[in-house]
């Protein structure tokens, strides 16, 4: 169990994830999975109260709901967001989602369908789900709990499920303007696509992680952001909110071994 003096890597990543939604305005913030959801919830409870969120089912809430069994907490619904409404929201572009794809490539293209050959795959994952539509319609960020060359692949992802900045994939007349890939929060660093021609860059390194280590665990060359620094540590106020939103410490099971946020010196 974490305490105020020992920040976990998951908590550091939640704070890094929350930063993805800064400045988005009134959009639906969809954090899929424990760390992205806690990140979106933290953003809404601190600097971005204008964000819309759901109860992770079909109702909108203005107060993010704690994860897992709720005890005597009763959600306060403010609106409705069935799957049908989600598609209307997605196609209208008023959403910023953060999900964890199986593979990501240098173009920001993502894969959630299969690993290996499409016809006879080494591993069938979920299917493309909403990635094609999300990626071409609204802002997207990604979450990677295991930064490695298996996720950040050489070349293109095995099955391009979500679109990215790969000119070869776009034919004349197709509208790319709504594609907006923001951040990738991993267990090592935060990446963005703000290099020349949307080149992928390391934006910040988690405490104790070197650029060389990130590069070594990535299947393609990375740029260093000029302002490259350390990923901000959670503040006491942020930690208090995270712990209140996650009373069953589900975050503790998200990163293998639940390591501390600040690596012990090697």
């Amino acid at each position: 169990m974490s305490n105020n003096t020992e920040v976990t890597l998951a908590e550091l990543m939640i704070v890094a994830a929350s930063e993805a939604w800064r400045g988005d305005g009134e959009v639906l913030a969809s954090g899929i999975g424990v760390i992205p959801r806690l990140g979106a919830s933290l953003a809404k409870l601190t600097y971005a109260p204008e964000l819309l969120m759901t109860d992770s089912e079909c109702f909108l809430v203005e107060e993010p709901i704690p994860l897992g069994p709720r005890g005597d907490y009763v959600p306060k619904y403010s609106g409705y967001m069935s799957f049908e409404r989600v598609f209307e929201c997605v196609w209208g572009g008023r959403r910023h989602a953060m999900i964890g794809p199986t593979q990501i490539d240098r173009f920001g293209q993502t894969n959630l369908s299969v690993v290996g050959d499409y016809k006879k795959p080494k591993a069938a994952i979920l299917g493309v789900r909403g990635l094609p539509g999300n990626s071409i319609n609204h802002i997207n960020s990604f979450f990677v709990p295991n930064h490695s060359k298996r996720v950040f692949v050489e070349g293109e992802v095995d099955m391009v499920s979500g679109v990215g900045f790969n000119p070869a994939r776009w034919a004349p007349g197709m509208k790319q303007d709504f594609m907006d890939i923001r951040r990738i929060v991993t267990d090592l660093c935060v990446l963005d696509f703000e290099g020349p021609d949307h080149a992928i860059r390391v934006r910040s390194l988690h405490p104790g992680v070197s650029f060389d280590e990130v590069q070594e665990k990535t299947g393609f060359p990375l740029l260093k952001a000029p302002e490259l620094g350390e990923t901000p540590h959670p503040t006491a106020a942020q930690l208090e909110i995270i712990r209140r939103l996650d009373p069953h410490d589900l975050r503790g099971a998200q990163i293998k071994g639940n390591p501390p946020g600040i690596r012990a010196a090697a």
Partner: protein
Amino acid sequence: MNKLMTTADVVAQLRDGMTIGFGGWGPRRKPMAIVREILRSDVKDLTVVSYGGPDVGMLCAAGKVKKLIFGFATLDAIPLEPWYRKVREAGGLELMELDEGMWQWGLRAAGMRVPFLPTRCGLATDITKLNPELKTIQSPYADGEVLLAMPALKLDVALVHVNVADQLGNTLIQGGDPYFDHLVARAADACYVSAERVEERLALTPDQARFNTFERYLVKGVVHAPCGAHPTTCAPEYGWDMSHFKRYVASAAEEGGWQAYMDEFVTPGEAAYQERNGGVERMGKLPLPVF
């Protein structure tokens, strides 16, 4: 007018090679009592159109699926659908893998009797590469934008599980999210519903009547199937059955696992199915999942 029938009557309407759409979403409100009846039948070579859960997995396990038109298959709390995965990885399934939004867009086109509806979803991905039958179209207006022309997904039969129905074919879906069952029903030549409760004729208040999401003229048959969505959820009444899911998942890792699952749960019929899952007493009280 009385559309009441049995699951066996529904399955007697099915033919080899039909395109069948399933309501629900992943492990939620799937017409599983009818699925089990299909598993007991000799119907084969189906094109299955579904936001996939155990409906897709079980039909794949039983070798009923020739082609799958889907955006995903999952049990949610158990992310990877075990039998979909096993059969998919063995190769041999024909596939039309679609963005979730494209899937409902194709059903909508079918229900509106138009050949396609335009969308941006699917462009610049492998969906168009893997499905060359998906064409693009240029906007005839000044913008000239190139869009994907999502073809109508016409269904022979739609199978949907609802909370309440009457003998006329009126239905209520009372869970928080009605999913896309109305579009599945509209896209089909014939829709058969199973229901937790069946009344002779509904007599509702305005607040209750709002849970009716499609018209009875779409409904050809009504089956009374208490706990008919088990092991999937049927909000607001019961949640998914995690212990059953675990048993089902384990079957995919066992030699002869599917036959053992069939022998234990499917072949002996729905009454035995209920008894082996603790009876409707237990099944109908499974807690709804909390996220």
